[in-house]
């Protein structure tokens, strides 16, 4: 029995190690090879360099022009800038609307409330490509010029759902008697919301906002359909690069995006632990 138990324990540890290896080794490899100086075959290590980062960031490097395939750092910077602007706008809109809907559905009982809730979940379950095509057809038929505005509107349609779900979960865990206690102690509804409901909801709102921000920064499929010809976001830019072959600069960009996402996620976790 003792052997069996230790065997089970050993295989559990082994499984866990394999599981994490499966998830993280590709990411670790990207990070490592982003410092590989071999310009032809990324997977063959020839030496350490930070040239790819320098190249991506627009500094002059020792790499010969023929080995490069970022024609213009300006384009990349413009794509990053577009993505950040879109993510900031959509996050703001989705957070305000998603939170408001979550509170309304939690607080008020009205006809069709449960149907409303299902409708709010729908955009998350819908295939991205269908949503993308639907939005494209809608915008074209409505005569809206494709561009930044359509991307922001289009992304909001599903980002609101994410914020709604995160904030709803927080609301569901809230103690209703706290609102009673506040009213009992003389606070009207607005004061109760400001002093009791909102502070408790804040970690959920922040969490929902960070999630919306990362998803917006990351979205390719839906944005691709509704971006038009003039606006390029970072994921679209990377995708376009990939179509011309996998080159070392991709690794550098990927590592920078990864770091950015990691910082945002850590910030979310930190805020959450501090609020608790």
């Amino acid at each position, binding site marked *: 029995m003792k052997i069996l138990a230790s065997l089970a324990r050993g295989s559990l540890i082994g499984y866990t190690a394999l599981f994490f290896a499966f998830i993280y080794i590709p990411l670790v490899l990207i990070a490592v090879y982003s410092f590989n100086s071999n310009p032809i075959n990324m997977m063959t290590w020839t030496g350490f360099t930070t040239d790819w980062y320098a190249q991506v960031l627009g500094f002059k490097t020792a790499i010969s022009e023929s080995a490069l395939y970022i024609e213009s750092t300006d384009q990349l910077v413009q794509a990053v800038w577009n993505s950040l602007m879109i993510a900031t706008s959509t996050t703001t809109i989705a957070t305000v609307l998603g939170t408001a809907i979550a509170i309304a559905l939690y607080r008020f009982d009205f006809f069709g409330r449960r149907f409303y809730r299902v409708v709010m979940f729908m955009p998350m379950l819908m295939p991205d490509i269908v949503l993308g095509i639907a939005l494209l057809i809608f915008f074209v038929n409505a005569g809206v010029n494709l561009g930044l505005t359509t991307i922001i509107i289009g992304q909001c349609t599903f980002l609101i759902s994410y914020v709604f779900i995160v904030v709803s979960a927080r609301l569901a865990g809230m103690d209703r*008697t706290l609102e009673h206690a506040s009213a009992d102690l*003389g606070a009207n509804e607005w004061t109760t919301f400001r002093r009791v409901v909102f*502070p408790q909801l804040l970690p959920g709102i922040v969490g929902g906002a960070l999630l919306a921000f990362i998803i917006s920064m990351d979205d390719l499929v839906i944005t691709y359909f509704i971006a038009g010809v003039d606006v390029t976001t970072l994921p679209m830019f990377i995708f376009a690069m990939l179509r011309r072959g996998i080159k070392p600069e991709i690794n550098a960009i990927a590592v920078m995006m990864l770091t950015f996402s990691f910082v945002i996620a850590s910030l979310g976790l930190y805020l959450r632990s501090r609020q608790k």
Partner: protein
Amino acid sequence: MRDSIVRLEKAAKAFATPEGHTVTALDAIDLDVSRNEFLTLLGPSGCGKTTLLQAISGFVELDAGRILIDGEDITDRPPYRRPVNTVFQNYALFPHMTVGENTAYALEVAGVAKAERTKRVADALRMVGLQGMEGRKPRQLSGGQQQRVALARAIIARPKLLLLDEPLSALDKNLRQAMQIELKTLQHELGISFIFVTHDQQEALTMSDRVAVLSGGRIQQLDTPRAIYDQPKNSFVATFVGASNLFEGEAIGGQLLTADGLSITHAKVQTTGTATALIRPEQFFIAQPDDAAPSLDVDLEQIVFVGSTFELFGRTAAGRRVIAEIPATRRNLVGEIEQSRRARLAYDPAAVHLIPAEAA
């Protein structure tokens, strides 16, 4: 008439159940609570006591009737405009605020200046024995301490009336008993009326000036703890408050004859007709051979030692259950009957309470 702080006039409330039935939570209740009175609402769950409390605090809207506080009709006022504060069953402390902020909440909302707030918070916390704890968060406190913060928070604005919704039910027994005494002391110091809701009859008897026993949305009896215990108006009150032996039968000239052939002697000689006799278990004593007191012969089924007393569970010849409580100081007598498994339980006819039939 005594000076009334709260008056309920024909307060009525019914709820619809999910199955489509209607449950009467408050059945046209009239109630007067005097200034500086400690009133307890006692009853089993679902008797309407919490509904009654919430009607006063404003969280339940009445179907009919009025509520007056200090002569003012507040029936249609929202909870935040009533001069009433509540200590909630689960304390309902704001988890994101410190003890100090929690306690100051009512003053802050009312726009009291910071300096005065700080001083009054310190005073309130001192009253409940938590001086210097302003900076802690509720989750860093024990259950008993949280209870005290809830109390300090509810009394800081000097409400005209404090409502307490089973506030001690989550505490362990020793702490609960200590808090019972403290609450009573605090109420005297503050000079405000308390309405206390509980389903624990011991708690009700210990603390209250008056007890209202509720059942089925009605006040079955409103009286001092002693009167509730000694002279219950009906058999519900008799059985809900304390242990009891009830004998229903026909009263004729100082005797009550039951259908199973017992005869209970009582002091209400002039009472005739159908009635129920109540003998509390502690009224019984073990009869000596030369005792002239009336008695019941029982076969003992069980003798339980509970520390200060022995509880005797017996049956009469006709099979009726009888409970008696014998002080532990009489343990030599208990030793004797333990051998024979039979006992003659005597009682004083003056200690027998008669409940007339219409009330039972």
